[in-house]
């Protein structure tokens, strides 16, 4: 695996973000979610590196805390979605029964087509009282599995048709051994690329729902920071950092994840 400068840079940024999200919160001087802990509406300075919000929160510590929640939520969504996606997609791709394959394919495609946002919004609204990052992750997974499932299906279809499948079966190589030696590299590549892609999608989806006001009320996520900033008319009142900084952090995270998934796709492919 050749390590090059862009790869090193991307991984570096990613590690910085992870540190910000998972290590830094432990050093917060107080619970960043609590209101009125610091002076309101302060622009970024040495004491408050990202400034403060209208309800008296330090944006720096709040962001770090929120980023942790957003990423955890995303990881959980990705995990659940990938499991469902792999199960359904692998069956659809591998099965010999054409009825099963066609039905599953139609089913998977229908979930790809159905606009998930309105469904998720109604769901999130109904369960507003109980919304936690975990519940949100589960809700997002209801639609997250659809598109990865399509790619697993076509992956499995192509693997099944390969010559080595037939030769392996004919030469007596057990199904499981064949699976591991021949298929695993491709499956790992799919897993890496899809996981990172799903993570991105989940973070984007959660932000979207949050902007509609339906994210977790107690826990802070990047999306909920943006929501409150918009609710309090932050930019119009000149408190631009409250909105701009979380967006920049999100964009940095999302683009980094995208680059990582692309690199995973290229590097793992080389056998």
């Amino acid at each position, binding site marked *: 695996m050749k390590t090059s400068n862009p790869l090193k840079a991307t991984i570096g940024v990613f590690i910085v973000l992870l540190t910000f999200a998972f290590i830094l919160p432990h050093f917060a001087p107080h619970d960043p979610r609590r209101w009125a802990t610091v002076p309101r509406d302060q622009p970024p300075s040495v004491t408050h590196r990202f400034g403060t919000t209208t309800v008296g929160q330090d944006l720096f510590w709040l962001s770090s805390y929120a980023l942790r929640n957003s990423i955890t939520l995303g990881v959980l969504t990705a995990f659940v979605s990938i499991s469902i996606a792999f199960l359904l997609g692998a069956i659809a791709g591998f099965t010999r029964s054409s009825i099963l394959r066609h039905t599953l394919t*139609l089913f998977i*495609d229908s979930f790809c087509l159905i606009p998930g946002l309105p469904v998720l919004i109604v769901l999130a609204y109904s*369960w507003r009282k109980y919304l936690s990052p975990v519940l949100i992750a589960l809700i997002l997974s209801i639609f997250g599995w659809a598109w990865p499932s399509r790619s697993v299906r076509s992956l499995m279809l192509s693997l099944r048709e390969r010559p080595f499948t037939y030769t392996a079966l004919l030469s007596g190589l057990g199904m499981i051994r064949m699976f591991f030696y021949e298929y695993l590299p491709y499956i790992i590549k799919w897993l890496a690329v899809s996981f990172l892609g799903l993570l991105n999608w989940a973070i*984007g989806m959660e932000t979207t729902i949050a902007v509609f006001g339906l994210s977790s009320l107690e826990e802070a996520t990047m999306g909920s920071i943006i929501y409150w900033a918009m609710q309090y008319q932050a930019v119009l009142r000149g408190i631009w950092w409250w909105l701009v900084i979380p967006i920049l952090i999100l964009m940095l995270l999302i683009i980094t994840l*995208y680059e990582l998934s692309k690199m995973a796709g290229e590097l793992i492919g080389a056998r």
Partner: protein
Amino acid sequence: MKGLELGSFKLLAHVTSRLLFFLLTVWVGLTATFIVSRASPIDPSVILVSRLLAMGSHLRPEEIFAMRQQILELYGLDKPVYMQYLLFIKGVLSGNLGPSFAFFPTPTIDLIRNSISWTVLLLGFSTILSWIIGNVIGVLAAVFSRSRISKALEWIAMGLYPVPYVILAILLFLFFSLTIPMYRGVGGAGMVMPSLSVSYILEVLTRLSIPALSIILGSSASWFLSMKALALSVKGEDFVSYAIIRGLGRKVVTKYVMRHSLLPQITSLALSLGYIFNGALVTEYIFSYPGLGRLLYQAITNADYNLMLGILSYSIMGVALAAFVLDLIYPLIDPRIRYGG
């Protein structure tokens, strides 16, 4: 349509399978809507009543009771589940979804009807434009793959593509509200009465342009990237190298590649409509564009559960229908389906 051989088996098979898919999608979507509405911890009748009380109407206990009964009947909550389900489907298909909670007793269908044409306008305009822009530039980038512009475009697209629609919308909103002072006012206006005057058309275009731009930026990047990859692989196909060997110039070769690459991109578009629709919803909300997205947000803030369900149901049906229409257009362009062989 010259020579459209309707007797072609492949054509029939194609239309049938897409029709089946349309029905399946609608069924799955409406069933999911039903499940979501019933398997929730909230009681819609309670919501309505508390809503009305909060709005300050003075109701006597008997009136409250009657209203609750009305809601119970509407949702069929006193009947067994399967009956509720059938009632619900019937309601959606016949356009009878009951009253909006926030604008009681206006039927939700009326509210939806007012907003849906705005959404169709935004969605149709942005989707078609971004599909065309992204695909055309993608093909050119593939044919001239060694040029610097092509590589630069790829970098730009890779920067736009992963960004969620919501963030693109907010960024654009920030940019325009800070740079064009006039713009700050446009968003909040109320409903506009349609008329065939120039001022109305201008009004529509003004409201449409920035949200459309937001969607177009994100979508074009996506189409560009997928088309460039697709066209590059098509470029390597036998019939393309044969065209080059025969001495047909770059223009003809580009036409070959484009025609062949557009086909999978149409299929791709049909399936992506749900995703783009999501983007349109949130973009409408951010820019206070008078479509379903803004209506949905209002429904949320007004605890208008019935309206939410209505928007949800019709969103699903609308997207599925649009995809079906696209699927019907596909054979017009792919002769292999139109004239089986």
